[in-house]
């Protein structure tokens, strides 16, 4: 390096940062999804310095493959300052080889002429390991053409299966699946803008129009959107994506636009619009069947109510976060604090039948998060409380109801089953009392441990408050 520095004084030295390179390439590939939803970043064995774009069915949107390539190349040059080598071919392997080794920076290979085009290229164009390439060169195979002329059997015997697989993949005899960086959407709508837009209102208006175009396709297939992805392509190549999850499948452009507006509010995504967004894409990433409903006749109003509720829940969720809307679901357990769990609301919990609640016992309206220890005076050690002190206040008990005995759930504990003594291992048995004080306040107290059998000095706790 000292020699190199001596020769060129302007030389700058940086350590290789593979992770940063990878992230930058990913960003670039994301940007390229403005051309086609399927962009696949090159892995280590592809050289990790480029990406595949599956432009089948997308090229005509840009006026053909030549125009697309020219556009891509000029944008890469202009936006990122990257001189790119681009090639279009029927197979990823052939495109890779042409991009790497063809003299022209832009190359479009007509269909079915892979063998012809690959023949003059060096053997490295097949994406082989360096050792295989060295061995082949030592054997005299310098170009792909030389390899193609030979019978396959000796190669299969001497080299790893990868050599022939790569050859077949390049020629299109074998499929090479691409792993897209974002899962391809089911329905996708994209709009390019002559003038970049900056304001949130414009983004919302445009996405509403995009949803309008998608709605026709969704109606045709009898489905509605459950999750959507909004991609904002900034002029300088940055891509912002917003995920919008809905409670019930919908095709309503107004509703979707409102959700996007709320989401933009919450995410402040348009705050750093830079010089504006040049393209906006809206993709339905999850579609669900949405059966046609009869309206008008004998309408009970309940279906509409559910839909209204779903719309409201969506709106609240966009701003407050996905876990902020919940419903209390019962759990099969006798332990009060375990008998219930709040679960986020989904379409199933909204439209489906409510789970059955079995317990008909007296339960408090408010359950303390942790049972709080309390000082209790009782006439007999295993009798109801007469007076207790909780949070610094002494309450005179005028009426106590109980006990309701709740034992530990031995079936959740390690064997042997059943344990020889009740309450062994899983915490002592609890005796619950509903007590009322002279002021009419009602509490739920329990005594931990069976007196004399499990413990000598029972402890008392306040666990809940009754209305």
């Amino acid at each position, binding site marked *: 390096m000292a020699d190199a520095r001596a020769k060129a004084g302007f030389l700058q030295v940086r350590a290789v940062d593979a992770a940063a390179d990878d992230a930058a390439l990913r960003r670039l590939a994301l940007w390229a999804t403005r051309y086609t939803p399927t962009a696949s970043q090159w892995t280590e064995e592809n050289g990790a310095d480029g990406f595949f774009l599956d432009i089948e069915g997308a090229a005509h949107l840009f006026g053909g493959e030549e125009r697309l390539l020219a556009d891509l190349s000029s944008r890469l040059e202009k936006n990122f300052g990257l001189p790119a080598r681009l090639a279009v071919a029927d197979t990823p392997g052939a495109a890779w080889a042409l991009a790497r080794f063809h003299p022209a920076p832009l190359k479009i290979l007509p269909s079915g002429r892979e063998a012809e085009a690959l023949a003059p290229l060096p053997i490295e164009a097949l994406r082989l390991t360096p050792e295989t390439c060295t061995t082949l060169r030592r054997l005299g195979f310098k170009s792909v053409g030389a390899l193609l002329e030979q019978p396959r059997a000796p190669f299969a015997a001497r080299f790893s299966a990868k050599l022939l697989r790569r050859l077949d993949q390049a020629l299109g005899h074998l499929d090479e699946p691409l792993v897209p960086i974002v899962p391809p959407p089911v329905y996708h709508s994209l709009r390019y803008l002559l003038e970049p837009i900056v304001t949130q209102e414009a983004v919302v208006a445009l996405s509403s129009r995009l949803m309008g175009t998608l709605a026709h396709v969704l109606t045709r297939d009898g489905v509605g959107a459950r999750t959507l992805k909004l991609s904002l392509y900034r002029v300088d190549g940055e891509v912002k994506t917003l995920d919008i999850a809905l409670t019930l499948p919908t095709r309503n452009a107004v509703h979707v636009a409102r959700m996007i507006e709320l989401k933009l509010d919450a995410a402040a995504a348009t705050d750093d619009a830079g010089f504006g967004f040049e393209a906006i894409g809206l993709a339905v990433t999850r579609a669900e069947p949405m059966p046609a409903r009869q309206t008008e006749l004998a309408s009970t*109003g*309940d279906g509409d*109510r559910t839909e*209204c*509720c779903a*719309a*409201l*829940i969506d*709106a*609240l969720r966009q*701003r*407050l976060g996905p*876990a*902020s*809307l*919940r*419903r*209390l*679901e*019962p759990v099969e357990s006798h332990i*009060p604090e375990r*008998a*219930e769990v*709040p679960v986020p*609301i989904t379409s199933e919990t909204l439209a489906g039948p*409510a*789970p059955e*609640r079995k*317990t008909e*016992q*007296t*339960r*408090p*309206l*408010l*359950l*303390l*998060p942790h049972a709080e220890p309390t000082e209790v005076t009782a006439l007999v050690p295993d009798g109801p409380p007469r007076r207790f002190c909780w949070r610094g206040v002494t309450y005179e008990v*005028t*009426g106590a*109801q109980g006990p309701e005995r709740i034992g530990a759930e031995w079936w959740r504990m390690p064997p042997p089953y059943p344990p020889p003594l009740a309450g062994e291992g899983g915490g002592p048995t609890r005796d619950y009392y*509903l007590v*009322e004080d002279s*002021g*009419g*306040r*009602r509490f739920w107290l329990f005594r931990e441990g069976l007196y004399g059998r499990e413990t000598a000095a029972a402890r008392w706790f306040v666990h*809940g*408050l*009754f*209305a």
Partner: protein
Amino acid sequence: MTQPMTQSMPQPMPQPAPASALAVARNRAALMEELRRLLPGMADSRKTLPFGLAALDSCLPEGGLPCGALHEVVPAPYGIPAAFGFIAAILGRISSPPPPGPRLRAPEWGRVFLVLPAYGFREYGRLHGHGLKNLGLDPARLVLVETAHRRDTLWAIEEALRSGAPAAIAAMIDKLDLKTSQRLHLAATDCGLPLFLLRPAQNLESSAAATRWRVGTAEAARDRFGLVARPRWHLQLERARNGRPGEWVVEYDHVAHRFSLAAALADPARARGANEKNEKADRNAHCA
């Protein structure tokens, strides 16, 4: 007396009203009646939620809690569970499906939204679904909305009101200025939905609420075995727009979703007699 007045309504006022105070009042009543008939929106907001108790309903305008309005529920000292229970009982009456008994004229049975800030309320624990069911509110019909700031709480309440989707909305809020309460009350009036606000604050600001209840604890009604049969609350109607204040001890039967006046007797034996009498009277009323 009022007949000629109402007939002449569509035309401009023909002559100045007679000068006597009684006539002025009558004219005004007739005018209001006509206005209500003409404004369909007002007919909606006039929907009420009666308690089914003559003593309470007679203190309220139109014989019940106005449907499209803001109602404040203030707990007496140590009364947060009781205040919450009172709200849960009303929500249970609103959200229960109509068939199993004579119910109040609810707008439509449906879901109720409960907006709870994550910051308050923690010392009292969390809502227990089985306990809600003991008060007649099916937890499956309840959507809990958790908010992190007061701004979010207000936004969520208003969003829920404007959507018109739930059957009722309840929320807990610590501070509420007059302007915000007016805003919420207007939103509730526009959509014809009742909004119940639990206000644990000690010194309350003035607000635009249609009613303000102060709910305290009271000794529960017990059955003949001495077990707690029905919760009782000490209700004070502190403020009621176009109504009268009052004070009662009521008890609530969650199976029938029914409020009744507690027999104010300490002696269990006499209380039992009174209860039985009450039940008999209820049964008779039911049969009739």
